[in-house]
């Protein structure tokens, strides 16, 4: 496996590759990053779906699906993620490495061509996408957004973030809102396409055993001579004077408790890692303070987990509990956080949190999807480390540093979704 090699095509457009012959499937992706903005979030999200539905060369859903089938079931998929206050719209293809094709077909070069067709030569005419494509994908995106309510753990976390970060770009969400998707016009999606290609920060990645040169040239011929600088996101943080409390009710067997907290925020990768160690000590592993106390000692729940979004400085702690135990669980969680702030962290707890983080970082080297996610997730930070460098850096995080970072954590919002079914 080679290191991650990153070349700039021009300012704001980078092509990164890892040459690795351990896998049967190779991956190629294009990620377009812009500050999250109410005016464009929904259009960008719908664009990613419309782009992967058809293109000039394969002008409808079935034609494009048949093409993918003929490439041994290659996958083409849109994804939209949030990186702090930024929105990252990706289109990725993955498919069989050439040496495994039964008929000597070069799957990889066809996939590179296909991704370029999808991005640069979509199914547009007279400044508009195909209307049917827009309507079909709009319907599905709306169903997707609606379905977030179906899984209550996901929904409760989203509601907590909505309330906690109201008025901040962070709460716009990766898809924008349902109403914004409903109101989109074909022109808006077309404008999103034009604008993202011209102005977004672009991260292209190719991972696998094929020579990245061909894909590189395809992208270079489009992007070279088109430098861009994305404006920094606003990064507003509105901390309430007293803890916000929101309770909602649903017909559920189990109540969900989500606590939204503010943690320290850093641009530097190394500091972010220390923050992750802090969160892991509190509630990131099966021997963390939350697991050992809230679950094992008090038998209050099946899960009680903390995680930190280092691209924003937001920490979330969530659990599923009996309705009458909501307050007790909150107290129990806060007691553990208080103990950490006072420095009650054993050497064992710190060591185990570091081991878990190192294990997870080094394991990501065995999956191309995980490696790609790792690089894209940290691309906006300074001093980005490789998984191996990050694992080594985790070792250096001191107990004092963890205590200091725990002391930067403040409770902001408590969201409870109360169930009332026996």
């Amino acid at each position, binding site marked *: 496996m080679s290191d991650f090699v990153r070349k700039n095509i021009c300012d704001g457009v980078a092509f990164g590759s890892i040459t690795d012959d*351990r*896998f*049967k*499937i190779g991956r190629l992706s294009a990620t377009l990053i812009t500050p999250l903005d109410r005016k464009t979030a929904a259009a960008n999200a719908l664009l990613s779906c419309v782009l992967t539905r058809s293109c000039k060369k394969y002008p409808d*859903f*079935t034609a494009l*699906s*048949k093409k*993918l*089938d*003929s*490439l*041994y*079931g290659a996958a083409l998929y849109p994804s939209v993620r949030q990186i702090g206050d930024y929105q990252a719209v990706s289109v990725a293809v993955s*498919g*069989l490495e050439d*040496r*495994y094709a*039964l008929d000597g077909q070069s799957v990889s070069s066809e996939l590179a061509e296909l991704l370029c067709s999808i991005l640069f030569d979509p199914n547009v005419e007279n400044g508009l996408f195909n209307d049917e494509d827009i309507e*079909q994908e709009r*319907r*599905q995106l709306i*169903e*997707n957004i*609606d*379905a*977030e*309510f*179906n*899984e*209550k753990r996901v929904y409760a976390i989203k509601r907590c973030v909505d309330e906690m970060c109201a008025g901040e770009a962070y709460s716009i969400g990766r898809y924008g809102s349902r109403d914004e998707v409903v109101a989109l016009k074909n022109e808006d999606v077309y404008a999103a396409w034009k604008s993202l290609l011209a102005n977004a920060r672009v991260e292209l990645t190719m991972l696998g055993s094929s020579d990245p040169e061909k894909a590189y040239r395809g992208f270079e011929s489009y992007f070279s001579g088109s430098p861009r600088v994305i404006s920094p996101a606003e990064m507003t943080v509105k901390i309430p004077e007293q803890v916000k409390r929101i309770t909602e009710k*649903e*017909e559920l*067997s*189990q109540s969900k408790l989500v606590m939204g907290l503010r943690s320290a925020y850093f641009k530097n990768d190394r500091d972010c890692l220390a923050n992750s160690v802090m969160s892991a000590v509190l509630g990131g*592993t*099966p*021997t963390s303070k939350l697991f050992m106390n809230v*679950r094992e000692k008090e*038998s*209050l729940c*099946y*899960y009680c987990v903390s995680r930190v979004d280092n691209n924003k400085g937001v920490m979330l702690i969530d659990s*599923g*509990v009996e309705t009458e135990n909501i307050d007790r669980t909150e107290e129990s969680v806060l007691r553990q956080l208080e103990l950490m702030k006072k420095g009650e962290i054993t050497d*064992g707890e710190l*060591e*185990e949190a570091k*081991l*878990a983080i*190192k*294990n*997870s970082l*080094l*394991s990501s*080297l*065995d*999956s*191309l999807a995980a490696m790609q996610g790792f690089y894209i997730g940290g691309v906006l930070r300074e001093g980005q480390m490789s998984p191996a460098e990050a694992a080594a850096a985790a070792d250096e995080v001191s107990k004092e540093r963890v205590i200091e970072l725990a002391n930067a954590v403040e409770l902001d919002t408590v969201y409870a979704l109360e*169930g009332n079914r026996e």
Partner: protein
Amino acid sequence: MDFTRIENKRVGEHYFRMKHESGLTVIVYPKKGFNSIYASMGTKFGSIYSKFMFNGKEVTVPDGTAHYLEHKLFESEDGDAFSKYAKTGASANAFTSFDMTCYLFSCTDNFRESLEILIDLMQTPYFTKETVAKEQGIIGQEIKMYDDSPDWRVMMNLFGGLYHNHPINIDIAGSVETIAEITPEILYECYNSYYNLNNMVLTVVGGVDPQEVLDIVNKRIKPSDAVDTRLILPEEPYKVVKSYTEQVMPVAVPLFDIGFKEDSTDKYATNKEQICTSILMNAFVGESSALYRSLLDKGLINSSFGYEYLEGLGYRSLILSGESRDPKAVAEHINEAVIKLHKDGVSREDFENARKVVYGKMLAGFDHKQSIASELISGEFTGRELFSAVDEAAEITLEDVNERLEKQLDADNCCLSVVKGEE
């Protein structure tokens, strides 16, 4: 005693297998250049093992016992296994399915210590009144979490609509009431019946040396004598219980599962049967199919739509699932297409297309240690060899697929399960 080396040219990989003198089956699958190692130890004992013969005696256990046992096995007299794993840095877990229970870890360092923990935990049951009682609250919350999961409910309701007597229609974790009946004695009885090395498999996948695994096994395994245990399954009629079932839950988009029940048999599906089914379903409802397109154009499905072949001892069903504003229309549409499919069969073009897709997806599975390990374990329990499946997929014919179709997708023997919100 030596490993047998099993290799495959199409996959370009190999693995080692042996029946250890202790009775345990050991499989080591080296992945060249991989950083991490995934180890999994499984026993052929899951939620459908609710009634069995053990040493000439008939035993019936409360619903949720296999899953409860999984939780409690993590504890031994000298502390719980999670705490031990925490010191090696391994990420550990376990799961109980309908027909097996697996304990696993993944690590990049301290492999030897982690494997010792895994092997030890499987061999040191420690159940007391107090430790069993402590788990009631935790598992109670796990059960309630699943009660609120529409995906889980729509599937369990489907099984209730398909199966009259087969224990697949019992929730894996049981209910708050049934787990209250579980005692240390019941857990020991199940442990002694099914956590026997002759009924178990250890698989290790990743950057690992087979000899190292064998050394640890030799050192740690305590041999056990084979026991006489036999699963008792009730008679199951061919016909479904009902053709429609629904539950109202707080959901914004209704969910559906459409299940086509097949003739039950006491045999697992073969590699060939499974591959034929995958090709058949890919040709029938894959993304490039006419049916998928027509469901999409009518606004009836979205990208959550998919299918699964669920089979084991005494149960076989093809399940199509997804989210839809109008599940009944989806089911009608699919049933019409099924009738037409039985009349026309799969076409040559669709077959060639689908075979390529299935072949590509099978090879893709070899990139994931977890997927290899799980296929190796279930393969051991069901008699399906991993590599020969790839060769069979490359050689399957259209006639094989159309012959398979005759035994599947009976439009008169299906059930639609729906979870929807308040009207």
